[in-house]
């Protein structure tokens, strides 16, 4: 018998076998096709999302152009729509949320990853992850009836008394406002920061820790000087993810922020966020331009969260690569 590569053609087998074979192969093809169609549906949906937001905001985009972002009046009556108060409110509340949540959150993550015994860490992490599952309205409920009165009667007067020279803590005290929203957001994003930072910290290779301890470092020093720097990018990633969450948060914010489109340096002042104004005014929007402006706000929010999420993912990925190079 002569040698020949497998590509040599041979006479096909009996007819019945061929049909049977084709039918079997078709099963595979069908499965491939069906799943492909559904996977494409996902792609289609995301494209459609962009398209719908873009298309339905064109009235507002054409009317205002880039002005939209630095005009600070939001006047439905005279049809003057500027996004600045909402962008301001969103950014301030999110920044405040991070300011309050990050130190405690990273601290807790450090405790859970480095200092606590495994069992304790597992149980506490479980509880904290459950917090992330609490619906936004429930947080809002607690915000309105617990947080706001607390701020109004205890916290804000205290801040005003001792730190009133700062522009942040001046002006009338309502309870609702930027401070309330920021504080509530902080509570809502803390579980994310803790959960992701903890995982990032746990992923730091044991060799690094051992090297530090072998040189006589205390556990805290090992954590601060070796583990944390190693995990730095991942922790920043978790912060950005928390930021993305805070930016898009609607219900809890709208229940405590005061829903007033104004820009005020004081944290005591009521404000408004992009998500909150869409939620509140969408069904009341009387004109096409009004709705278009709200939809444009939605588009902006969407793009912003995409950007922040992308940065977050890059950072979290980068921690992994750090190890390969090191």
């Amino acid at each position, binding site marked *: *018998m002569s*040698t020949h590569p497998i*590509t040599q053609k041979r006479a096909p*087998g009996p007819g019945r076998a061929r049909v*049977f074979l084709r039918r*079997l192969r078709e099963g595979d093809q069908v499965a491939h096709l069906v799943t492909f169609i559904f996977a494409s549906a996902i792609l289609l949906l995301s494209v459609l999302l962009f398209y719908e937001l873009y298309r339905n905001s064109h009235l507002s985009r054409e009317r205002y152009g880039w002005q939209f972002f630095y005009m600070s009046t939001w006047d439905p009556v005279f049809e003057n729509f500027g996004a600045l108060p909402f962008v301001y409110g969103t950014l301030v509340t999110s920044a405040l949320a991070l300011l309050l949540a990050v130190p405690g959150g990273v601290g807790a993550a450090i405790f859970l990853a480095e200092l606590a015994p495994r069992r304790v860490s597992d149980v506490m992490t479980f509880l904290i992850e459950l917090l992330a599952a609490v619906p936004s309205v429930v947080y809002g409920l607690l915000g309105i009836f617990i947080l706001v009165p607390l701020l109004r009667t205890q916290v804000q007067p205290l801040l005003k008394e001792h730190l009133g020279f700062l522009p942040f803590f001046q002006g009338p005290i309502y309870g609702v406002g930027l401070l309330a929203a920021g504080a509530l957001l902080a509570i809502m994003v803390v579980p994310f920061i803790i959960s992701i930072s903890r995982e990032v910290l746990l992923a730091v290779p044991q060799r690094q820790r051992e090297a530090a301890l072998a040189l006589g470092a205390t556990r805290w020093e090992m954590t601060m000087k070796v583990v944390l720097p190693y995990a730095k990018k991942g922790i920043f990633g978790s912060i950005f993810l928390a930021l993305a969450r805070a930016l898009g948060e609607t219900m809890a914010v709208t229940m405590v922020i005061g829903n007033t489109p104004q820009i005020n340096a004081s944290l005591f002042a009521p404000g408004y966020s992009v998500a909150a104004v869409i939620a509140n005014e969408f069904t009341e929007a009387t004109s096409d331009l009004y709705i278009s402006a709200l939809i444009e706000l939605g588009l902006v929010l969407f793009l912003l969260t995409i950007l922040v999420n992308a940065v977050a993912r890059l950072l979290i990925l980068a921690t992994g690569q750090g190890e390969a190079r090191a």
Partner: protein
Amino acid sequence: MNVTEAREFPLLKMQIQVREEKPAAAGEATLVTERLVVRYGQRVAVQDVSLQFYRKLITAIIGPSGCGKSTLLRTLNRMNDTVANTSTGGLVQLDGEDIYAPGYDVIRLRRRVGMVFQQPNPFPKSIYDNVAFGLRINGLARSRAELQERVEKALRAAALWDEVKDRLDRNALQLSGGEQQRLCIARALAVQPEVLLMDEPASALDPVSTAKIEELMFELKKHYTIVIVTHNMQQAARVSDYTAFLLNGVLVEFDATSQLFTTPSDSRTEAYITGRFG
């Protein structure tokens, strides 16, 4: 029937109880490879191997680890097709048909040529469902009764029936390692293949289970052609009729087991079986 004979294997420096009274005569070759070449990307794993596997006899493939024996085995039922970046050249024939010919029914091939893997891999299903799987998938039983019959037959052939007949509904993963492997054999036998490929079937098992499986192979030989890859030379000597010795992907020697282990023709074979390497 079960006459054992203590035969001297001076090169292996031991006596081995061998089952056969006489050396088995080679009948027709049911499975043939000719100048088989297998590549993983750039690396050549099997080089120019021409072998004949005789009907209803046991052929062992031995060699040091990494010599390509598993790869060779996997070409015989085209399981290498599932590994990315492999290319196969040369000829592999089952009953005269080129199994790598375009249009050749791979599914049917795998029914005719069954495989038992090194690590027992029963499905996380009941014992019954494991054995019935091949039958159901290929539509081989026309009724519930027939299915049950064939499952029982397969389990008996694998010498497992008595141990599991009262717990066919239990999850297969609850069985011991040796039992799981025999279950995998039963599962492969259920579809009534002509050839059974065994890739180091006992290497993950304890000596008692290993002995049971070797016992089993003598029974199976009556009905099936068996090709077994093993790194255990004593096992090859005990069990097989013909042995092929592979080194670095190249077929060094292929002969009747009794010949190869007593008077090997190639010095490399002698070096391997006397333990000088591998």
